[in-house]
Every structure is written in structure tokens, then in C-alpha cells.
């Protein structure tokens, strides 16, 4: 009976023997699954496949063990190509790196870019690909880090970029005076084609605008938010349905908070609010607020307006709402983390209410002559990440203890980083190089 389960392959002249149980792991939607399906004449003594035997061997091992081991003599791209042939590319991707953990990250790859000038933003895709915004162009990479067709919105300066899903990229760009150019649009990640543009209408009249920071509401909520600046009164936060591209709402600026200039937007599902942060150095006074779009109110806000500032004072340079929705984490120019409680009180003014956790570790190391970037923050699965100069710090636990530092000597300071598809992408300021960090698959034992 055991022999009936056995299957023999001759791949490019090399014999392989395996079982249909092992091959079942490939799934019906793969070449091997179809080959053995009963609609085709199964039960042949031997199947000939005119492909590379070394790659087949690797892929067969993947089906047997679920783990991927690429021998040194097999180029990775070749293996991907073969996997695509067999319809096993998703298997390979799933085995290439493990579940994300900031404390087990290893440098997986480093990709040099060619664009001139400073990078604006890097974003990780849900499937492990990424895109890099440089000036007016967004370079798109799939998870194999092959570059796809670059994207641009009328070649206007890109302000922010984000993935709606693995195959849809949304771009916000500067408007060009007098033309309908710029604004905001969705593109196909695979082909770089424009899917649709988002329009801002005031009194049923479309207006050109500059779109800034972006945020998506979530999985089942199709809303997308962006800060908008126009030439008349189109300052505020626009809301669209990303499926249809239709504008669904607009939150006009209240006096005292420049929403159109926001550096960071973040949707907080637990509060049904949008966090908006307008920060130094874009404005002199930092403003962080929660917008309730249902009644157009600002139920909570924080600002450091009103306290005299000199350059050495701690300024909030980036902010992120923590995943539990109870607090906002901020960072200053000395790489100190601070927390603002969202539950305490309605409104904090005059810069009070930040609980700085002074680590004071990097202050002295700061090298004045080196061109530095403003720090950024990110959260993932309870871990907090911050980048400063050329390294990324990982903080874990409820007390946010520094547990890892990711650093590489090449490329200069990090201007942006992003976590997506169980990978961390860090964009360096020099050479336009970006690093890909991921966690290894589960160890053998």
C-alpha cells in the first residue's frame, strides 16, 4: 500500500522520489497539485519535468519540512523563478522569514537606490515588499526586492505614501499651481498604473490641493485620511473611500491647530478618532489632537504653545498613538521618549502632561557636524521602535525597556523606517540605500 503513495519524478534528468502526501502540501492551485489531480492521468510510473533539478530539490525539501534552505550554489532569483513555475512562490515567501519580533531581527538585504536627493519616506507592504519615495518618484519593490515600474503623480513632489493592500499604493503629492496636477491618487503596485485620483470638493467645485500625511482607517473600514492644503480655505483633513475614490467628509481647521500641515495622522479605532500631529520644525508650536469626525469636534488635544522655547529645550519631533489607545508616545531631539496620557483630562496646554522617560544616553554622543535626520517612531505588536541618526532602537514590555539596537555603518543616518509584512525597512539618508530586516523562521529545535 505504501508504494501507491509514492511518486517518482525525473527533473532535468535527476530522479526524485517522494509521496503524494508531501506533494499535497503544494495545494491544488499549484503545478504539482494539478499534475497529480485525478482529472489528469495520475498513477504514472514516473513524471518527467523539464526543469532545474537543484531548485526542485530545494522546493521539494520545502514541501517536506516547511522550511526553506537555499544551497549556496543556487541563486536566489533562480529559485524564485522556479517557484513561480511550480506555483510555489507563496510557499517560499512564507518560509523565507518568520513572524516579526524586534528583538530577533537580522539584516536580510540592503538595496541601493539611484534617485538623487534625500529620501522622503519608505513603506513596507503587507506581503513584505516596499516602496521608497524620493522627490517626485516612488520606487516600488516586490517582496523579492525586485524593482517594479516606478510611480509618480505628474512628477510632483511626493509628501507621503502608503499601502492600501499589497497591490495598491496611495501617494500624496504637492499641487502645481494653475494645473490640476498633484494631490492624491491610488496606483497598482504591480504595474504602476493609476487607478483613481482623490478629489477635494468645496461647494461641489473641485479644487486643486496639496496632500500631506496619510492614514488608513483599517481592514473593514474603507476610509482614508489625508491632510490637505489649498490656496483658499481648503485647509484641513480630507476623508475618502479608498475603494471608490469618492470624498466622504472634510474636517476644516479649527483656529489654533494647523491640520493642513499635519506631520502625522493615525486612526485610533478604539476611540473612533483620528490623531493629528503637527510638529516642530514644520510649525513652531507642536499640536497633537484627536478629531472626532462624527460631530467635527476635537475631544482631546495637547499643545506646547505658550512656553518660551530656546533651541536646547526639548521639542516634540514625532508622535505615535500607542496600540492600546491609552497614550501617545513622543520623541524629542535628544532621542528621549515621552508619553502623554490620553485618558487624563480633556485638554493639556502649555506643554504640560508629557512624562519624559529620560534615557540621556545619546545626548553626549551626538556628533554636531554629521547631517542628522529627525527621529521617527513606530509600534508593532506591543513593541516600540524609534530611529535616531543611524540606528533603530527597539523597546519592549509595558515599561518600554530598550532591548535591541539595529545599526549598520553604511548609508548614514536613517531618515525614515517602516514595518510591514513582518519586515522592517530602514531608509538611509546617503546613497539612497535601504535595509531590510526580518526575523528568521523558527529554529529547528
Amino acid at each position, binding site marked *: 500500500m505504501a508504494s501507491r503513495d509514492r511518486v517518482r519524478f525525473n527533473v532535468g534528468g535527476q530522479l526524485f522520489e517522494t509521496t503524494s502526501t508531501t506533494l499535497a502540501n503544494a495545494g491544488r*492551485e*499549484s*503545478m504539482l497539485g*494539478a*499534475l497529480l*489531480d485525478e*482529472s*489528469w*492521468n495520475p498513477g504514472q510510473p514516473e*513524471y*518527467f*519535468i*523539464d526543469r532545474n533539478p537543484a531548485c526542485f530539490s530545494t522546493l521539494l525539501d520545502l514541501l517536506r519540512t516547511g522550511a526553506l534552505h537555499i544551497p549556496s550554489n543556487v541563486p536566489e532569483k533562480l529559485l524564485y523563478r522556479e517557484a*513561480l*513555475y511550480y*506555483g510555489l512562490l507563496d510557499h517560499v515567501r512564507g518560509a523565507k522569514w518568520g513572524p516579526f519580533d524586534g528583538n530577533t531581527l537580522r539584516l536580510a538585504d540592503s538595496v541601493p537606490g539611484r534617485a538623487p536627493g534625500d529620501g522622503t519616506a519608505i513603506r513596507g507592504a503587507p506581503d513584505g515588499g516596499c516602496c521608497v519615495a524620493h522627490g517626485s518618484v516612488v520606487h516600488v519593490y516586490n517582496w523579492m526586492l525586485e524593482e517594479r515600474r516606478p510611480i509618480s503623480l505628474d512628477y510632483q513632489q511626493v509628501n507621503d505614501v502608503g499601502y492600501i493592500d499589497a497591490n495598491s499604493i496611495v501617494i500624496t503629492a504637492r499641487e502645481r499651481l494653475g494645473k490640476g496636477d498633484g494631490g492624491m491618487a491610488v496606483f497598482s503596485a*504591480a*504595474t504602476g498604473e493609476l487607478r483613481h485620483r482623490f478629489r477635494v470638493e468645496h461647494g461641489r467645485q473641485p479644487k486643486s490641493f496639496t496632500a500631506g500625511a496619510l492614514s488608513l482607517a483599517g481592514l473593514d473600514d474603507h476610509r482614508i485620511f489625508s491632510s490637505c492644503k489649498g490656496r483658499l480655505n481648503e485647509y484641513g483633513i480630507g476623508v475618502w473611500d479608498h475603494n471608490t475614490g469618492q470624498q466622504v467628509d472634510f474636517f476644516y481647521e479649527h483656529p489654533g491647530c494647523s491640520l493642513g500641515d499635519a506631520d502625522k495622522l493615525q486612526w485610533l479605532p478604539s476611540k473612533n478618532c483620528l490623531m493629528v500631529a503637527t510638529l516642530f520644525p514644520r510649525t513652531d508650536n507642536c499640536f497633537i489632537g484627536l478629531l472626532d469626525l462624527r460631530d467635527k469636534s476635537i475631544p482631546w488635544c495637547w499643545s506646547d504653545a505658550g512656553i518660551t522655547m530656546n533651541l536646547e529645550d526639548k521639542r516634540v519631533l514625532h508622535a505615535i498613538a500607542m496600540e492600546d489607545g491609552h497614550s501617545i508616545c513622543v520623541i524629542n531631539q535628544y532621542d528621549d521618549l515621552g508619553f502623554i496620557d490620553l485618558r487624563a483630562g480633556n485638554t493639556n496646554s502649555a506643554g504640560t502632561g508629557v512624562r519624559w522617560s529620560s534615557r540621556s544616553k545619546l545626548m553626549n554622543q551626538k556628533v554636531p557636524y554629521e547631517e542628522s535626520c529627525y527621529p521617527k517612531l513606530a509600534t508593532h505588536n506591543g513593541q516600540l521602535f524609534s530611529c535616531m541618526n543611524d540606528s533603530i532602537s527597539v523597546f519592549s514590555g509595558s515599561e518600554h525597556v530598550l532591548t535591541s539596537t539595529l545599526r549598520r555603518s553604511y548609508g548614514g543616518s536613517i531618515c525614515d523606517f517602516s514595518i510591514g509584512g513582518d519586515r522592517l525597512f530602514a531608509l538611509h539618508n546617503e546613497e539612497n540605500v535601504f535595509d531590510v530586516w526580518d526575523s528568521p523562521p523558527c529554529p529547528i529545535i
Partner: protein
Amino acid sequence: MNSQSQRRKNFKIEAFKHKVELDPKYAERTWKVLEHAIHEIYNNNASRLSFEELYRSAYNMVLHKYGDKLYSGLVATMTAHLNKIAKSVESAQGGLFLEKLNHKWADHNKALQMIRDILMYMDRSYVPTSHKTPVHELGLNLWSDHIIHSPNIQARLQDTLLDLVQRERTGDVINRGLMRNITKMLMDLGSSVYQDDFEKPFLDVSACFYSGESQQFIECCDCGSYLKKAERRLNEEMERVSHYLDAKTEVKITSVVEREMIANHMQRLVHMDNSGLVNMLIDDKYDDLSRMYSLFKRVPEGLSTIRDVMTSYLRERGRVLVTDTERLKDPVEFVQCLLNEKDKHDKIISTAFNNDKTFQNALNSSFEYFINLNNRSPEFISLYLDDKLRKGLKGASEEEVEVVLDKVMMLFRYLQEKDVFEKYYKQHLAKRLLSGKTVSDDAERSMIVKLKTECGYQFTSKLEGMFTDMKTSEDTMLDFYAKQSAELGDGPTLAVQILTTGSWPTQPTAACNLPPEILTVCEKFRTYYLGTHSGRRLTWQTNMGTADIKATFGKGHKHELNVSTYQMCVLMLFNSADGLTYREIEQATEVPALDLKRCLQSLACVKGKNVLRKEPMSKDISEEDVFYFNDKFTSKFVKVKIGTVVAQKESEPEKQETRQRVEEDRKPQIEAAIVRIMKSRRVLDHNSIVAEVTKQLQSRFLPNPVVIKKRIESLIEREFLERDKADRKLYRYLA
């Protein structure tokens, strides 16, 4: 050197070739192989094909940028096959048409799966980047276009399906499995295909069918059987959906049946002669009612239609009931009738109408409406209770008592004039307590508790006072006899009930002249009582007492007579005289004339109780009559109870009097409410005051706006309020 450079010059460098050009015929040749394979697959000859080779061929075509050719070739080949299939399906005769279609559909699906297997690589890499439809979806679309929407098939398919449904509706057995496969095919082709090619016409045809059928049914069926048929049809359609239609169709088809069979005929059904809703209610047809409820519930306005008819029926029936002069003769019967009516409809609502709250409300509001049509309802309800608490509940268990009381409370809740009820209840309770006729103290107290929870402490405080008085009296009498027994000797035994003024419904009446034997004891008691309770005043209510006296008639017949105090006074006169005229009796006793006549009547004119003899013999008492001790009185009982006039339905003048007293009592309550409201509001217009007063007092009675106006005027006179100088409609509170 020279020659060398010369040679180099001659050396020709060819341009680097990017790609080795394939044999230009390669693509054509490969496509032929694949095309042949597709043919073989459609012809069920796949066993001779090598999957690996075909897969690799398709892969190579895509890899070498012949994806377009491959894709367009696929479309052309598949289209050609589908056109052939269409021909063969078209040629199928009669009933074989669906079989053939189903068979070919299964074949196509299998072929499609295999073609997709071969072209899997194209599906993964070429299709997404060139915006083409994936192979599987393409196969379904082509099937829709060339088979389902082929001019010779589309209408025929639709007619065949609808015909099968029609046949099943008229009782034929059809091949449901085949039907299921075909509808499933339409669903697989996309919801729009299923909807456009089947569901919409299906719903139209069904509407037409049920419109006709319902018309036919309603002409020849009574309401009950019509509803049965409608219910069966509804269930059939739901069953049909579960067997071979898309689950989403259920709502749509049931709404068609609901509209055609129920909504369009609702009014006619409920009002149907001899079998409509009213007849069902009268005959307690729980099944039919329940069916009507569940069917009508499905359509808009359905339940409200039932409810409206039920309400108007209940109101009319109730109105007839409470204004029926025959019924009004017996208050107990009257209330029992109301209770029965309530029970009957409660049961209908709980068994047939799913205990629907809105129906309960309708029932309540109907009762509230008609009970208050008769202003004697409060009196009658109190009389009913009186009857129950006197004798009706004898031997009943505690639970049974509770049930009766609860039911009466329910009627009580409907009363608008709760204060009138209170008046009567107080009178009746007083009589029960004083005559010791109450069956159970527990039942009495339970009733008080119920009234208290319903209307609050104020409502029952006086009633509770009456109970306290009874208890205190008992203790006082025990004490009196314990202390005074020596002095009293063999005189008559006195039982005094001391009633607190105000708690009891007593009217100040002059005491009659008591016989000297009694008077002595009474005086002793008065001395004793005032000795222990200084500062009190005792007044004898001789109109309310009773007495047991022993009498010896001719031949030594001894009897114990149970009589009222007035009767006792009369009888005692005959100890010293054999015959007395009416005037002599009246003079001696000083009993009020009306009462005296009544008590003489019961002593002389009732057969079997005539301890006195009257001359001349007649039913009525006149002032010239002479009364004699009836020596010949006999009775088989030792104890004879001489009937006193028990709590009876009030006579017309008494009723007027009670009403007047109620009206009088309402005045201060209305005034108090006005003052309370004005104290908090300071300024208010007339209509608002009336509204608020009504709201505050409606738990006790519905104040008449005219009376409220009078009370306001009275308050203005007494300077509690004043009219606003600018706006005469406004009143102002004067602190």
C-alpha cells in the same frame, strides 16, 4: 606592429544580441499543441495528453511574451466549442433540454478546470499584469454569453424553469435535483445572471399566479381556510427555496406571496362575514387566530389591522355590556361578566397572539374605555369585592383568593374615578367589619396591600385605621370585662366597637332611645372608657349596631333572634306591651322614620321571620299600623336572623349623595394640586395648569376642567393666585 593594427581594424565586432531569437514558428507551433489539447479535453480525450508538456508549453509562451496570443487563442477556441455545445443543447427535444444543458455544464466545468491547470502560469503572471479576466471566470463568462444568452436558449431555458415551478405548484412531481443543478449553474455564473435570467421573471410569474389564486380562494373560502391555504403556499415557497433556489430568493418570493395573498386582501379577510376576525374572537378559534397573527405579522400594517378590528369590537361589546340595564341589576354578576370577558381575551392574546405587548395594550385601553362609560363601575367593583369577601371566598385557598383579588385589581386599574371606588370600598369594608361578616382577615389585608401598592399610602391609610380600630376595640372590651365583671352582674353583654372619627364612613345621626337595661351597661362603659382615655368624646352610632336577644313564643318555643340595634329597641318594647301603634313605637324609640319603617318591615312582613304581627296585613308600613307580638311565630331554627338591609346597590338618591360627597372631597385635592404646581412654576397659563393638574391627579380620578377652573377662581378670591396684569391668561402665584 603595423600589420597587427591592420588586423585589428579588420576585426568586426558584432552587436551584442540581447536574446536568442526563437524560431518564429515556435509560438504558432506551441499554440497548435495547446489548441489541440483544449479540443481533446472538450472531447473527453484528455488521457492521452501530457500535463507536464502542456504546462511547460503554456509557460514558455508566456515567458517569451506570447501571452496575448495564448490568451486570445484560448478565447477563440473556447468560444468555438461553446457554440458547438449551444447547437447540441438547442437540438435537445422537449424534456431532454434541461438534462442536456446540465450534462454539458458539468462537462464544461471539468474542461475549464483542466484548461486552467494547463494555463495556471498564465493566470498567475500574464493575467494580473495585463488586466485580463482569469481563466475560470473567463470560462463562466463565455458560457453565459454563448449558451445561456444564446437567442435560442435564453427564452427556452427561462420558460422551462418557470413551467417546472408552475407544474410543481399545481401538484406535479418534478426533478428537483436537475432543477437545483440548473439554478446552481445560474448562481455560479454570477448573481446578476441568476437574477436577470431566472429570479426576476420567477417573481413576476409568481406574483401573477398568486394574485389569481388568491382571488379565487377569497371568493369561495371562509377566512379560516383561506388563511390555511395561504400558510401552506408560504411554506411551500420556502421549501422550494431551500431545495433548489438561492437562499437570498427566500425573502423576495415570500414577500411576493405575502403581498398577493395577504396584504392585498387584509381588509376583506378580517371583515369576512361569519368567519372574519370578530367571529374567530367570539368562538375562541385559537388556531385560526394564531395563523392570522403569524401571517399578518409578515406584512406592513398587518398587525395593526388585526388590532384595530379587535379594539373596535372589544369597545362595542364592552359598551353594550356596561350599558345593559338588565345586567346592571346585579352588580356581582356585572363584574363577573367583565372579568370573564377579560379572561377570555387574555387567553386569546396569550395563545394566539404570541402575548404581543401591543395587543395587550389594545385590550387594556379598550377596557379602560368602556368601564368608565358607566359611572357606577367603581361602586359595582367594590360590591363585587364585598360579595367575595363576605361569602364568595369561603373555603377558597389562599392562592385562589389572590387570583380573584388580582383580577379585580386589574379592573380597578382601568377605573378613572379611583376616589369613588375608595368611598364605596370604605363603606362596604366598614359594614363588613362592624357586622363581623368578613370571611378572612388575611384576604382583607391582602386587598389593602394591593391597593396600597397601586395607589400609595394615602389611599389606604384610613382603611388601615379601620382595622386598627377593630383590634383596639377587642382589647378594650376584654379589659372592660376583666375590670368590671363584678359590677355588671347578669345584665346584657355589651360589645362596643370604638371607631375613630374620620376613619369611618359614619354620618352623624341622633342616637335612638336605648332600652334601660342596655343604657345602664352603656353608661358603665362610657365611664370606664373616658376614665382610661381622658379628653375623648363617645357618640353612640345606634344605626350600625346589632344585638342577639332571646325570645319565648307561644307553647314555650324559645328562639335566639339576631337583630339590629334598632330592631332590638323595638322588640324590647313588647316586653311590657302586647300591641303598639307605629306612632307609639316611634315615640318610644326615636328611631329615624325611614330606618324605623325598614326595620318594622323586616320584623313583620318577611315570611318565616315575622316575630311581629301587623294590622292591617300589608306589605308596606303606614303610620296608622298597629303591631302585636306574634305569639304563633315558629321556626325550625333556634337562631333566627332577622334580615337587615345589607350592603346593597345604592338607590338613586343615595348614589347622588355619594357622588356629591366625592365631588366635595375632590375640591381640596384639586386646589392642593394647583397650589403645588404654582408654587414651583410661579407663572403659568390656564391650559398648562389644567394639563398638569390632570396629570398629577389621574391616578385617583380625572378632574373636570370646569371644576379646575372654578377652583382656580376660588384660589384667586382667597389670594393664593392672581391674574397677570398684562396677559389675562397667565396666573401668578402669590407667596
